[in-house]
């Protein structure tokens, strides 16, 4: 178990290091000079050169990488070129919206998907299965912004239960803040739940044909108990894999939903930073996402070992 753990952690650190180099290198070769951008069209070459020196853009590549990477480690992400505030402030402000949103959406999609998958698998080929998998097919096919619009129409415009968009900030109280995240979370969760339900169903169906399911039935356990106690845990590995991938998507792949609901989230920050050549913000957010994805994957790897004892004793 310790060997498995150490190996996974070592792989995670190596991946992070490699990713930081790639991110730095890619942004380095992209066109666009931040100094020129900050000073505007009328700046003279001398002024630009002066600013470039001030910003350290003229130092050797390796040195700049080390400086940047060292800063990341001490949470000093530098200052945004366009907003002229520390990047860390920008990012943490946006994370306060995006992280809860992702977590709520992930929880919702799991809560919806696993029971639907169980229901479908236990009724394989019957009407209930066909209907729920048809609904899942629809969920995968329909884009989430359409769901978002429908939800706004029904719950915000018609029933007036929640605001149609915007985010009051956590300072306005937990409940109002949560309320404004509810519809976007549902809109994000539905397509994810549809995918997850299909994965759960197929994993369960595979497990249900295993010999040990028959052994459990021969013990006298009713079908439902066999499903929950013996099949579900064995079917968890593919489900966990998909969950890990979904979290990464939910954290940053939500630009459209953030726009529909006018939420000041991470996705919109990246979008703006890219259009304004605010490279330092882009770099920082990308690195943050890379770190988050690696951390989640590490978590998923470790949860494999919790689910399956065979992984614990293997190297």
């Amino acid at each position, binding site marked *: 178990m310790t060997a498995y753990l150490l190996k996974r952690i070592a792989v995670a650190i190596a991946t992070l290091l490699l990713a930081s180099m790639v991110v730095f290198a890619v942004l380095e070769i992209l066109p666009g000079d931040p100094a020129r951008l900050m000073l505007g069209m009328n700046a003279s070459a001398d002024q630009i050169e002066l600013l470039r020196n001030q910003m350290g853009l003229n130092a050797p590549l390796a040195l700049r990488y080390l400086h940047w990477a060292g800063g990341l480690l001490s949470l000093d992400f530098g200052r945004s070129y366009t907003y002229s505030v520390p990047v860390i402030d920008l990012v943490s402000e946006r994370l306060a919206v995006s992280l809860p949103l992702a977590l709520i959406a992930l929880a919702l999609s799991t809560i919806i998907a696993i029971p639907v998958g169980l229901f479908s698998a236990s009724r394989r080929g019957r009407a209930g299965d066909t209907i729920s998998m048809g609904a899942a097919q629809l969920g995968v096919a329909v884009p989430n912004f359409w769901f978002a619009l429908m939800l706004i129409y029904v719950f915000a415009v018609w029933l007036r239960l929640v605001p149609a968009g915007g985010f009051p900030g956590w300072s306005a109280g937990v409940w109002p803040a949560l309320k404004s995240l509810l519809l976007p979370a549902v809109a994000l969760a539905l397509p994810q739940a549809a995918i997850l339900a299909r994965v759960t169903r197929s994993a369960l169906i595979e497990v249900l044909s295993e010999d*040990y399911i028959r*052994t459990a*039935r021969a*013990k*006298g356990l009713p079908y439902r108990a066999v499903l929950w106690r013996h099949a579900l845990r*064995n079917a968890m590995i593919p489900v966990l894999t998909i969950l890990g991938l979904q979290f990464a998507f939910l954290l940053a792949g939500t630009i459209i939903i953030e726009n529909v609901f006018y939420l000041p989230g991470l996705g919109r920050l990246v979008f703006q930073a890219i259009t304004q050549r605010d490279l330092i913000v882009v770099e920082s957010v990308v690195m943050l996402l890379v770190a988050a994805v690696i951390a989640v994957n590490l978590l998923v790897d470790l949860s494999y070992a919790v689910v*399956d004892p065979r992984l614990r004793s293997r190297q």
Partner: protein
Amino acid sequence: MSLLDIENLSLTIGDTQILRGMELSVAPGEVMGLVGESGSGKSMTALTVMQLLPHAARATGRVTFDGIDILAATEDQMCALRGDDIGMVFQEPMTALNPVKTIGEQVAEGIRWHTKANRAEAEDRARKMLDRVGLPEAKFPMARFPHELSGGQRQRVVIAIACALKPKLLIADEPTTALDVVLQAQILDLLRDLVAESRMGLLLISHDLAVVTEMADRITILRHGEVMEAGDTARTLSEQTHPYTRQLAQASMHVPARARPHDIETGQPLLQVESVTRDYPGRRTSLFKRAPGIRAVDDVSLSMAPGQSVALVGRSGCGKSTLARMILALDQPSSGTIRFRGETVTGKSEAELKPARRNMQVVFQDPYGSFDPRQKVEKLIAEPLHVLEKKPTRAERREMVAHALHEVGLGISDMDKYPHEFSGGQRQRLSIARAIITRPKLVVADEPVSALDVSIRAQILDLFAELNQKLGIAYLFITHDLTVARAITDEVLVMHDGKVVERGKTSEVLDHPQSEAAKALVTAAPDLHRAIAKRLREQG
């Protein structure tokens, strides 16, 4: 009164008729043997009694267990019976246990479910049951997971689950088919004791007539879903009045007619294995530590003459398959040398091995798993031809495949079929055709008949014997089945813990074993003659 009564049971799954007018009964404390070839409906009979049939199955007739009409029982009634009054043990112990639950949990689960006992009580009973089946606490804590146990140990756990609540009826479906003979004898002893202890009825399902004869008081012989003959085991098998019973009995004792063993040619031996050892590194226990390694093959030497047929016997895990892999140059020895027709095969590149590969081929145990299901027979059989010096033309290739098929008793028209169109026995013929197409001097056969029914197995053994005579191929048979060794080999080597512990003429070693390992194998091996004689003696 009978415990279990099956009257006029017919079963269809979809459009296929599985059972026709099946009759069978088991009394308390009685062992009923249900014998038949694969597809005869044995397992489906068991699953009907358990009501664990596939959805599309329809059963008619009467099945009564302890006064309860099983076919009319509700699912709730069946749940109350399963695991409490009827226990069941399955064929494949490697997959019969849930890999993510401890053995203690799995045994205790049924106890808790049926008796409403609390966790501690249930675990206590589970502990006692595991002790009873030979898995004592000190060596096998309840927190073990199935993957930490061997096949035989896992089968004991399955038996503990089935017998935990002292069922009135135990159904054992091929409980020892996946185990080696010594383990088989141990598991059968355990089942016999459990039956005697609590006057449990046992429905023992097997394709092995010898096993059933040793165990069963009465026997039912099933073929294509119909009962051929039923009655007292000793009488049924000694009189053999029904032609099918006779056919089965003869097939399970079949010895192919072989002309005198080949005159062993003096001169260069075909194969020389000289003090070969194979070590596997131990499992990594942490980043810097490894468990001590395993010596799978330990200083083994042997020599085979051209045309000779040699058996390599031993229990599972004794290193016989590892040795075979090294002989086939699929694995490298840690030390020692292997010479084939005078040439060293150890430490050579694939290109250098080509001439040797032409002359040695292999037949595997599983005729289902050893063919690519998406390729046609012609391509499959022709596969080894790439080792030939000169690439044959398409017409030549077809000619060679046709010839090989003919030699194993299949037709030219079979060339354009896919593997799934053949039965198990025919597929093993295909494996043999593939092995002999390059005219090899040596064929290594790893348990080539143990997945086959007795009558098919007799035919395949005949085929091996015939090809040995006709083509002068030498065989190395790897097997734990002594009847196979006796049927077809001149010499036998007994392996135990990686070492060859005994060798000699097959009949001498099997009749008068000297080493402990050989004695254990011989006494454990079921033998139909011996079993019938013993039954008759007991009954006077």
